[in-house]
């Protein structure tokens, strides 16, 4: 088969289909991973003893568990306990947990770096603790956590390929199927790799732009 023809008729359509699934996974998981990360970080930093402990335990569990194992437990393990998810939902839950756990650590570090006095000053003005966190500490912490959160988002792009192990034909899986069928391993995997590289580059550039846009004049280093 002619290479150009193979590219046009087989490889590109297959990879595009896979890419759509990959993007769906990422776009669906990232916002929840971010939000849950914020909740875990705030809970651990400012929560009571029990809340703090629970957040810490959750993060420790996720950090200690290989993502692939987590996905297997969610998809293959839980049905025997009477809980079944579709492959997509199982993958989503796994990705969200993983993304959130690591995000929470970046955010927690950023929360701790905001000067204590601002929290005190906010409360001295009559703000509740929650208002002080939400209006004063968190907006500053999130700015500082952008580089870490971006990193984690890039990991998410790449570990979304593990969804293939739950029968989801995302980008890597689509490539694997085409490559095996047509014995075009090099062409196919290089193409797949190139697409990931583009995704990661777009992420990095966007994150840089966001970081510059939200930078507080006079504080953030260039």
């Amino acid at each position, binding site marked *: 088969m002619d290479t150009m023809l193979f590219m046009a008729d087989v490889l590109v359509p297959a990879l595009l289909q896979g890419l759509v699934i990959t993007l769906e996974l990422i776009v669906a998981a990232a916002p929840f991973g971010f939000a849950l990360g914020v909740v875990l970080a705030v809970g651990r930093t400012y929560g009571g003893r029990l809340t703090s402990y629970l957040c810490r335990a959750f993060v420790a569990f996720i950090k200690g568990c290989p993502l692939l194992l987590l996905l297997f437990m969610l998809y293959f393990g839980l049905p025997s306990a009477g809980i079944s998810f579709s492959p997509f939902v199982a993958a989503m839950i796994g990705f969200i947990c993983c993304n959130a756990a690591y995000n929470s650590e970046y955010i927690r570090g950023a929360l701790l770096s*905001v*000067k204590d*006095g*601002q929290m*005190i*000053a*906010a*409360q*001295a*003005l*009559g*703000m*509740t603790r929650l*208002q002080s966190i939400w*209006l*004063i500490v968190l*907006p*500053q912490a999130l*700015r500082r956590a952008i580089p870490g959160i971006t990193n984690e988002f890039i990991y998410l792009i790449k570990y979304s390929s593990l969804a293939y192990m739950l029968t989801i034909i995302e980008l890597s899986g689509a490539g694997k199927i085409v490559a095996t069928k047509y014995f075009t391993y090099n062409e196919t995997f290089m193409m797949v790799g190139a697409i990931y590289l583009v995704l990661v580059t777009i992420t990095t550039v966007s994150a840089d732009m966001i970081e510059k846009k939200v930078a*507080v*004049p*006079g*504080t953030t280093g260039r």
Partner: protein
Amino acid sequence: MHDDEYILKVENIRKSYGQTVVLDSVSFNVRKGDTKVFIGPSGTGKSTLLRCINQLTVPDSGRVWLNGEEVTHSGSRINYFRQKMGMVFQNFYLFDHLTAVRNVEIALIKVKGMPAKEARKKALLELRQVGMEDWADHYPAELSGGQAQRVSIARALAMDPDVMLFDEPTSALDPELTREVLEVIKNLARDGTTMLVVTHEMGFATSVANEILFMEGGRIAEQGSPQELLSDPRFSRTKNFIGQFREFDREM
């Protein structure tokens, strides 16, 4: 219990950290328009006392009353009382991610529920009071220490407090910036703002205070008007304390 002529009553405040007694039964009353200045050696509980008044530090025992209502043991109503007691800190503690005017208006909007437009107007007015209107759109990192402290004073004043608490407002500033901030506080005193000021600025203390409270070892050791403390032989410790500063100034 409550005596109507006093806007703020502080009764037997005690606070210890472990074995260290920081405040050992401190009591005093404040009339509307009073300027009470707390002086004394470092580590004698002056700052802790201010923080116990608005419960940023919870005292071990003792009570605080504002306009006849108990501030201590007030549960979630403490957030209301804190609005009524503006606080200014040694290190300003401006909100770093907000412009000067946003620093002043945010609590008006989020705590008092004031409409954004009205809050902006009031915030600008308060900034004008402290001579910072032209800097409204600047961020804290772009301000000098004296400017930042003036913004923080405007931020506290915007809540229309009954009492202002100044916790060493000029200790982080060089002499020139100190002067610009003290000027603002002096004007407030002249305009009848009720305030408690912890300071090491003896000249300021003697010129502005209705009453100077000399603290030592967690207690109010001596208290009286500046004239009394400086002339009456009964108040030897305060005089010696202030005298140290004067001698030092003369040597310079």
